[in-house]
C-alpha cells in the first residue's frame, strides 16, 4: 500500500523532465485526475488493440503523469528564479553549458524546487486515495474493508485519517531533511558560521 504511494512520488519526480511542452501540461491539468484514471481503466480497453492495464499500473501512470505536470511547472519556476546575472557571470568565467547548468543554475534552483516538491508529494499522498475506485488495495481500500467487516464506520475512518496524517508527516520530514543538505543551505550555514562563530556554536548545541 505504502509502496504505491511512494512509487507515484518517485515517478512524478522524474516525470517533469520529460513533460515540458505547455500543451501536454495544460491537457494534463485541465481535467480532474479521476477522469483520467477512469478513462484509462474503463474506457481504454474498449478500443480495439488497447490493453487492459492492471489497476495498480493504471493508477501509478495517471498519478505520476498528472502530478508530473504540476512538478514541471515547479521546476520551471525554480529555474527562472535563479538570477540571470548568475548565468552571465558563469558565461564571463568561461564555463561550458553543462558545468553552467549542473554547478551554477541547478544548485540554486533546487533551493526553490525542493520545498515545493515536498508539498507536491504530500498532495500525491492525498491523491492516492482515489485509486481505490479502480480496485487498487491502498490504505483507503483497506479502511473500507475494515468498515464493512466490523460495521464500525467511525473507528475505521478515524484510524484511516491518522494513517494519512502520519504518512504526510513522514513525507514532509523526508523533504525537510533533503532541504537541509542542499548546497545553497549548506553555503548559507557556512557563511553564517563565519560571521557569527559563537552564536552558531550555541545553535548547534541546541
Amino acid at each position, binding site marked *: 500500500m505504502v509502496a504505491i504511494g511512494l512509487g507515484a512520488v518517485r515517478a512524478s519526480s522524474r516525470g517533469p523532465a520529460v513533460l515540458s511542452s505547455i500543451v501536454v501540461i495544460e491537457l494534463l491539468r485541465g481535467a*480532474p485526475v479521476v477522469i483520467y484514471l477512469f478513462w484509462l481503466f*474503463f474506457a481504454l480497453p474498449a478500443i480495439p488493440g488497447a490493453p487492459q492495464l492492471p489497476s495498480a499500473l493504471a493508477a501509478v501512470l495517471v498519478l505520476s503523469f498528472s502530478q508530473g505536470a504540476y512538478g514541471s511547472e515547479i521546476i520551471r519556476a525554480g529555474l527562472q528564479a535563479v538570477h540571470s546575472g548568475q548565468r552571465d557571470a558563469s558565461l564571463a568565467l568561461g564555463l561550458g553549458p553543462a558545468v553552467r547548468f549542473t554547478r551554477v543554475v541547478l544548485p540554486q534552483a533546487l533551493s526553490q524546487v525542493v520545498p515545493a516538491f515536498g508539498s507536491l508529494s504530500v498532495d500525491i499522498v492525498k491523491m492516492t486515495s482515489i485509486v481505490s475506485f479502480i480496485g487498487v488495495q491502498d490504505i483507503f481500500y483497506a479502511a473500507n474493508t475494515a468498515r464493512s467487516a466490523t460495521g464500525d464506520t467511525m473507528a475505521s475512518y478515524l484510524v484511516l485519517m491518522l494513517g494519512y496524517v502520519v504518512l*504526510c508527516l513522514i513525507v514532509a520530514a523526508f523533504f525537510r531533511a533533503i532541504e537541509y543538505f542542499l548546497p545553497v543551505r549548506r553555503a548559507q550555514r557556512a557563511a553564517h558560521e563565519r560571521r557569527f562563530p559563537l552564536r552558531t556554536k550555541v545553535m548547534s548545541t541546541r
Partner: protein
Amino acid sequence: MTWDWSYALQTLPALLGGVLTTLVVTVLCAGIALLLGLALAVLFKLLPSGVGFVLRLPIELIKTLPALVILFFGFYGLPQVGITLPALPLGVIVLGTIYAAYCFEVYRGGFESIPQGMRDAAHALGLSRFTTWSRILVPMVVRASMPALLNYVLVLYRQSALLFAIGVPVILTAAQVVGYQYFRYLEPYTLAGVIYLVSNIPLAIFLRRYEKRNRNAHV
C-alpha cells in the same frame, strides 16, 4: 468496439445535466471557501499570537487529509453519531471547508503583505477598529489575494468530480450512470474528459485576463 457517434450523442444530454450540477456545486463551494477563509483569517489576526495555534491546528489537519476521506467520513461516518445530511449539501460543505483552509493561507499571506504604515495611518486618522478592518485592511487583502483565490476556484471546479463518490450528480457521475446503462464506457468517459478540458479553457483565459488587468490597476 469502436467509437459510436450516435451513442455519444445519446449520452450528451445526461452529461450536460452534470455540467449544470458541477457549476452549481462549484459556485456554492467557492462561496463557502472564500467567505469562511476570510472570516478565519480575520479572526486569526485578531487573536493574540499565543492562541493562534487553536485555529492553525485544525486548518493544518484539514489540509493534510485527502478530500475523499473527509467526504466518506461525513457521508458514512457521521450518520453513526446521528448526523445525517443529503449528499449534495454534505459535499458542498466538505469541499467548501477544505478550500476555506487553503484560502485562509492565501488571505493570511495577504495580511502579511500589508505594510504596518497602513494601520498606523488609519489609527492617525482616528478611524475606529471596525472601520479600519472593514474599509481598509479587508479590501486590500482581498484585492491582493484575488489571483491565488481564483486559481483555487478553478481547482475546486475540477475537484468537484470527486463528489461522484457519494452520488452527487456531477459530470463524472452522469458519465458513469449512462455507461452502466448501456455497458459502454468509452464514449461517456471520453466526452466527460473533453467537457472538463473544454470548459476549463474559458475559465483559465478569464482568470489570466483578470490577473493582467489587476496588475495594471496596481501600477
